[in-house]
């Protein structure tokens, strides 16, 4: 056998014994490097073919032919794995996360990222919440009304500043979506929106009855800064704020009592809370007036939103959540 023939035979033996798992590629590279050192004239290079979605890898060995040119060797052995299994992929190869019965594909997740809007949540948590709602609408086959679709489309466009047809078309082009796909996409949003609205309406009365003081309407003032403001009355606090030294953030506004900073949530009108430490500074605040919750539409809507958030949190606690690649 020629010298090159012997190199080929040895190269095939090398390939047949390399470990064919992604986790052991470095080990394979070291073995190939050692082999290359033993056959310097071959100019050997190992090519690692990492397949997506499977731990199985393939190898090729590139060698210099003595007469010029390159010889590529590949030599998978028979490890007794049937062909289709050898070339199969992990069941979640194209998926990002599974939440109960919803398996969110990478493509869906990328599209979903565009519609995430909560600043008080991580994208991970918001994706899980969206998946929980997807679980709920999976078997919803009730037709959507034109109003449902229009409202969802309007809300979607407003949220992205797509105020005219040209802006919407440009956005679709950027997303690689056809008008028909956009319609399908909006249909999905409309279904989830309808579920949310109905759930909020269903839960609102009971939630309001159980958390009535949270839906009092309160006008309050509060300041956060480096100074420890001490006041006996709201008027005293309001008077001292302009004269304070250092930087301060002052808020005067109307809120649902449940949305006020924690020290003020249960405070009566006229009461002053603080100073209390907050972050690196101090908080002082006062409730200027407080009106008991009413059963009007605005209050019920707020109670519905809070009830839905609570329902979602409870649902999240019970859900099976599996991030496939984290």
């Amino acid at each position, binding site marked *: 056998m020629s010298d090159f023939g012997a190199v080929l035979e040895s190269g095939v033996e090398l390939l047949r014994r390399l470990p064919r798992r992604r986790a052991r590629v470095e080990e394979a590279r070291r073995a190939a490097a050692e082999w290359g050192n033993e056959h310097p004239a071959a100019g050997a290079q190992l090519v690692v073919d990492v397949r997506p979605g499977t731990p199985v890898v393939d190898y090729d060995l590139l060698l210099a032919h003595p007469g010029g040119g390159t010889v590529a060797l590949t030599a998978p052995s028979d490890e007794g794995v049937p062909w289709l299994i050898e070339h199969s992929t*992990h069941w979640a190869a194209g998926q990002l996360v599974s939440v109960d019965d919803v398996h969110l594909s990478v493509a*869906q997740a990328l599209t979903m990222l565009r519609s995430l809007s909560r600043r008080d949540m991580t994208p991970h948590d918001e994706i899980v919440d969206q998946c929980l709602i997807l679980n709920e609408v999976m078997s919803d086959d009730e037709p959507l009304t034109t109003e449902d679709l229009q409202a969802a489309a309007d809300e979607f466009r407003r949220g992205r500043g797509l105020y005219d047809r040209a802006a919407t078309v440009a956005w679709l082009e950027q997303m690689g979506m056809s008008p028909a796909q956009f319609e399908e996409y909006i249909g999905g949003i409309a279904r989830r929106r309808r579920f949310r609205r109905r759930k909020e309406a269903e839960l609102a009365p009971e939630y309001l009855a159980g958390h009535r003081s949270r839906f009092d309407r309160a006008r309050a003032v509060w300041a956060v800064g480096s100074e420890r403001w001490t006041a006996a009355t709201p008027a005293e606090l309001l008077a001292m704020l302009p004269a304070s030294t250092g930087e301060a953030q002052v808020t005067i506004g109307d809120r649902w009592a449940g949305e006020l900073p924690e020290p003020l949530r249960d405070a009566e009108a006229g009461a002053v809370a603080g100073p209390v430490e907050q972050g690196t500074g101090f908080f002082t605040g006062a409730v200027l007036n407080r009106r008991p919750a009413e059963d009007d539409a605005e209050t019920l809507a707020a109670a519905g939103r809070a009830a839905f958030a609570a329902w979602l949190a409870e649902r999240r606690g019970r859900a099976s959540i599996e991030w496939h690649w984290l």
Partner: protein
Amino acid sequence: MILILSERLDDTVDLVLPKLRRRNVPVTWWDSGDFPARSRLTAAFSAGGHRITLHTEDGPLDLSTVTAVWRRRPTRSAASANVSEPTHRAHVDWQAQFLLDGAWDLIPARWLPSRREPERQAHNKIIHMARAASLGFSVPETVFTNDPAELVPAYERAEGRLIAKQINSDSFTVDGADHRTYTTVLTRRHLTSRHLLRHEPVILQPYVPKAVELRVIVVAEKVFAAEIDSQASRTAREDWRHYDDDRVRYAAHELPGDVRRRCAELVASFGLTYGAIDLILTPEGEYVFLEINPNGAWGFVETRTGLPISDAIADWLAQGESDE
């Protein structure tokens, strides 16, 4: 009485059940996985006849009163949990399954899609492909083989656009993790492991270019077709079971009369009353047959297209009751 054979968590049954209730027909939903552990079956023969009674959690059911059976997704008969010795369990399962098969044979009811045997035959890809071709469907140039020497010629005939599929769906693991085999266009890398083909037969087909994919649902003589625009998604382009619901559009599709008729004929030719047929509509407008799944899913078709399949199934099941 209508008997629905399916597992308790089958939400496809939930699509039909309310419609049967609206038609005011009595229904029993039972899973054969409850037998013999949680249900009792007695077939009693006496001079001149027999009586088969099934005792479920809902009470006794005289099987001669059953007019239609919907065999959806029943689980296999299983022994009680405290029958723990594996050979004893296997013994019980075998005895139970055998008796059930016999009992089902003796019920003078209509079946959707069929009793077990016709469905099993129709499910076999080599059989249904031959049947489809004989009925005039256009079928891809297909090879069923475990001969490694067949791979490269098939690849060349397909001009490098060859796909491989399983003979039957199955579950398996690689390094302990569940893996799947999807329809994928083969690469030259696949050819280098041709020797592994000897371990299992596979299906080799040229990749058929798609305008859209179609799932056709046949309920007796009614034919519903849904187009799945999988070409809009990079993920689902080669196999819509990768599901990319944001981008893949589903819509009702009007089949040409001859294709529609052929679909109904194919289902009927196996003695089935239901079938889910997968077709491809090529960019040239040709309808190409891929396969029939005699108990294939239809819930997603109805949900996404509004095609009234659950109504058709409810109508078919209730038909015998209203005839009485």
